[in-house]
Every structure is written in structure tokens, then in C-alpha cells.
């Protein structure tokens, strides 16, 4: 197996040093995988992914993107190293048009590549191509999510990280977003996603990590996690609730 795309080792992170939210989590994501991070509310899933993205302070442990140590790197540099992140909420600029959102993200690319990548995104998300001039704030929830994903993919990342891509979407839209993620993986992008909706996430993921109280609790292939009774007891309950709400 080649070197992992992302390696997280004994990560301790959070907002205050006395009360870290992530308390020693470790994981490895191999090239071309879709990996899901699952866990109950407050397990530190989102904090973990935000710490990797440089948005939450890391107190100890290391994060490597390929061979590069990116622990504590500035967020705005990470995208240039191939790490793209889609936050859970407020993940598009609502006062900018669809085209401006994408143009802004394309600024990190060399000038010659911008047009090509923008066109590629409009081909991949035809809905967005039809709404270039619309303010992103006027898009529906599903379209916003697509714009946020397109924005992240635009720069041809090594690793795409998504924080709860299904949050706030109807089951039908969740299916659509997840189908798109599968397509994205097929194009060679590695995906790490945090999900409350465990069943939906495991349906597309190769593997999953279960986080409890900021630490690794379980890990395994999607099939193994789905059939594990402890995991079912801990999470699939919450997934059922999410599906009915």
C-alpha cells in the first residue's frame, strides 16, 4: 500500500487547552478511499476535522498530508497543499454570486488552469452552470451543498473533507449528494467525511472510524461496522431518529 493521504496521530485539539474536545484520536486514510468518521453528538467528530483544516487549535499530536507535516498550518495554505474542506454550515458566500464563489476559489490555481477547472466544475454540476449569476444566498439547501463541494473540488484536491454533508437536507437530496461523492471518488479524489447519518455514510464509505469522547472507539470496514451490535446500539439509533425527523 502506498503512503496514506492523511495520517492523524494522537491528536489532542479543542477550543480551550484545559478541556480538549479531541483527546487522542488517530487515523489513516489511504489514497482513493472514502472514510467516514462517526460517533454520537459531542464525540468530537467535527472538532477533529476542523483541527485538521487548521480552524481549531491543536494541542498535541501530528497531522500529515502525504509526506508533509501540516500540524498547525494556516488554513489558507492548506488548500494549496491539496487539502479541501467543506464546512457543515455557512459553506458558501451568500452575498456573492455562484460564479463569484467559484472564481474566488479558483484564485489559488495558476492563471492558465483557472478557466479549464471552472469549466470542468460547470460540466460536473450542470445545475450550477445554469445559475451562475444567482446570489448563492438564494440557492436551495441542496444546491448550496453542491456549490460548496464544487468550490472545494475546483482546486483538484488530494483529499476532500466534508463536515456533515447531509445536515439539513431531505433524504432525497442526501441521496443525490452522496451519489455525487461516489462519482467524485471515481475521479480519483480521496474523501473523508464526518456524518451523523451513519447508515447513509456507511453506504458509500469503504471504512469508518467511530469516535467516542474524543478518542477512537471502533474502526472497521463499512460492512463490519454496520453489523457490529455495539455500533448499532450507539449510533444507528441516532441515524433512525435523523431519518424520521
Amino acid at each position, binding site marked *: 500500500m502506498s503512503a496514506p493521504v492523511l495520517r492523524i496521530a494522537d491528536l489532542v485539539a479543542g477550543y480551550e487547552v484545559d478541556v480538549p474536545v479531541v483527546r487522542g484520536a488517530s487515523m489513516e486514510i489511504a489514497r482513493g478511499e472514502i472514510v467516514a468518521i462517526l460517533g454520537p453528538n459531542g464525540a468530537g467528530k467535527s472538532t477533529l476535522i476542523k483541527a485538521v*483544516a*487548521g*480552524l481549531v487549535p491543536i494541542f498535541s499530536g501530528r497531522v500529515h498530508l502525504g509526506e508533509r507535516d501540516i500540524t498547525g498550518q*494556516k*488554513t*489558507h495554505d492548506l*488548500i*494549496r497543499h491539496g487539502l479541501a*474542506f467543506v*464546512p457543515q454550515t*455557512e*459553506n*458558501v*458566500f*451568500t*452575498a*456573492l454570486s455562484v460564479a*463569484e464563489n467559484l*472564481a*474566488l*476559489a479558483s*484564485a*489559488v490555481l495558476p492563471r492558465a488552469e483557472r478557466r479549464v477547472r471552472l469549466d470542468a466544475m460547470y460540466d460536473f454540476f450542470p445545475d450550477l452552470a445554469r445559475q451562475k449569476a444567482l446570489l448563492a*444566498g438564494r440557492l436551495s439547501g441542496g444546491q448550496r451543498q453542491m456549490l460548496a463541494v464544487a*468550490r472545494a473540488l475546483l*482546486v483538484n484536491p488530494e483529499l476532500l473533507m466534508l463536515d456533515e454533508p447531509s445536515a439539513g437536507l431531505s433524504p432525497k437530496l442526501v441521496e443525490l449528494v452522496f451519489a455525487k461523492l461516489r462519482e467524485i471518488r471515481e475521479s480519483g479524489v480521496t474523501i473523508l467525511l464526518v456524518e451523523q447519518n451513519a447508515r447513509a455514510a456507511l453506504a458509500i464509505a469503504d471504512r469508518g472510524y467511530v469516535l467516542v469522547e474524543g478518542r477512537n472507539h471502533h474502526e472497521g470496514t463499512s460492512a463490519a461496522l454496520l453489523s457490529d451490535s455495539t455500533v448499532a446500539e450507539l449510533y444507528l439509533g441516532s441515524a433512525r431518529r435523523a431519518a424520521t425527523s
Partner: protein
Amino acid sequence: MNPQFFADGLLMGAMIGLGAIGVTLTYSILRFANFAHGEFVTWGAYGTLALTGAIGFAAGSDIDAIGPFSFGWPLLIAGLAAAILTGLLALALDLILFARLRAKGTAIIMVMASFGASMALRSLCEFFFTSAPRYYSRDIQIAIEILPGMRMTPDQLFMIGLTAVLVAAMHLLMTRTTLGRSMRAVSENPALSSVVGIDVDRIVRATWLIGGALAAAAGVMSGIVVQIRPFMGFDLLLPLFAAAILGGIGSVPGAILGGLIVGLAEAAAVPLIGANFRAAVAFLLLTAVLLLRPAGIFGVRE
């Protein structure tokens, strides 16, 4: 009512609008009301005065004014240099004061600090230049009738034209360039901005430079058409904030439109209710906007 008020208001509004662009940008991107912004207006005006003097001294002889205007090329060069220097002054103030407070403080601490900075800058100005009013030129200009009952001097027409050019340039910057889009992005969501690869600190620096430079331009205008005093910027502070809030925080066209409305309202107040109440007009407008439409004309309700 004498239509002359319209010309006066337009001129006043142009000055207020230019200053308000800086206020609205710092307010939306740095998230605090910078009460020291008025001092950038003052320092820009005095900086231009000092540099014009220096150029005149170096040239050694009297330099003729350009065409019908009261000023020659030294003032234009000095104004441009002073605008850059004022931008740098704003940047320096951020570096030694606001950046440190931003790292740990809350908005209210920064507002209070800006009050302190405002006082310090104003006192420094008085120390260097005394509080006696100064002028770029003492020549008397003949006003031309541009519309029936409306007169303006060539200087004043130049100022209106310059404002129009600066505002158009700012509008293009904000809507067509990566820097402008980045500024709008940071004002909406700094965290997401860094996620998409924008260096937020760089945008903050650009904002100070642009805001300081435009304030200096307003200062030079005010110096040419009125006079140069240490309190000139401070006295403009309330109209600046009224204009920025009226137009909608973060909006460049809003700031200029807000400035024109405040300027015209002030000018109209003089014949209607008397010159004593001129200063109260900006305050009344500000109160009315905050009560009726807090997001302003171009603002987006959060």
C-alpha cells in the same frame, strides 16, 4: 429654496461618501467601529499641506496653478503621496494597536482603543501644526453658474469629478477583482474565507490601506474647499458613520449614496431650520435609519 443648497450638499456629500467608504469597509471586515477614522481625514489633509510646502521649497520658485484651479501640480503629487502615507499610518495603527487587541479583545475594547488613538493622533496634529486654520491656497476663486441659480468654483467641480472617478474605481475593484471579491468574502465569513485559500491578514492590511487613502482624499477635498483644522476629521465622524450605516455596512455604493444623502440633508437644513442645527441632521438621520431600516439601503439583514 435657493437651489445653491444642492451644489453645497453634493460637495459635502462627496467628501462624506469618500470617508464613509473606509468606515464601511473597516466596520464590515474588521468588525468594529473605528472612531479614529476621522483622524485619517485630518492627517491626509495636513500631510498634503506639509508635502506641498516641501515641494514648493525644493522647486525654489512659485509654481503656477493649473488652468482655472487654485492649486498647481505640487498639490496633486503631494495629495497622492499623502494618501499613500495615510494608508500606511492606518496600517501602522493596526499593527501596534488593533491587531494586538483583535487577537484577544472584544469589539468594544477595540472601539474604546480607537477613541484613544483618535485623541492621540489629533493632539499630535495640533502639536505639529498648531490649531490655527490653514489653507492650501488663499486665492479667491470665482464661482461659475453651472445651472440656473447654482454656482460652483472650478475647484469644487474638480472635486466632484475626482470623487466620481474614485468611487467608480472602488466599485470595479470590489466587483471585478480577486482582491475585491476577497474583501467581500472576508466581510461575510472570515473562517470560510481562509478555507477557500484567502489570507485574511492580507485582506485586512489591504482594507486599512484603501480606507486610509480614501480618507486622505476626503481630507484634501475638505482642505481645498473649506479649510484645514486639527478637528476637521473628528467633526466629520458622525456624518461618516451616518452615511455608512444609512447605505448599509459593507456596501461601497451604499457609503457614497449615504454620504450624498447626509450631505444634501445637512445643506438643506441650513436654509430650512438654520445653520445651528446643521450638525444635528446627521444624528437624526442615523437615529431614523437605525429605527426604521437598521440594515441600511444596500444592507443585507442577517
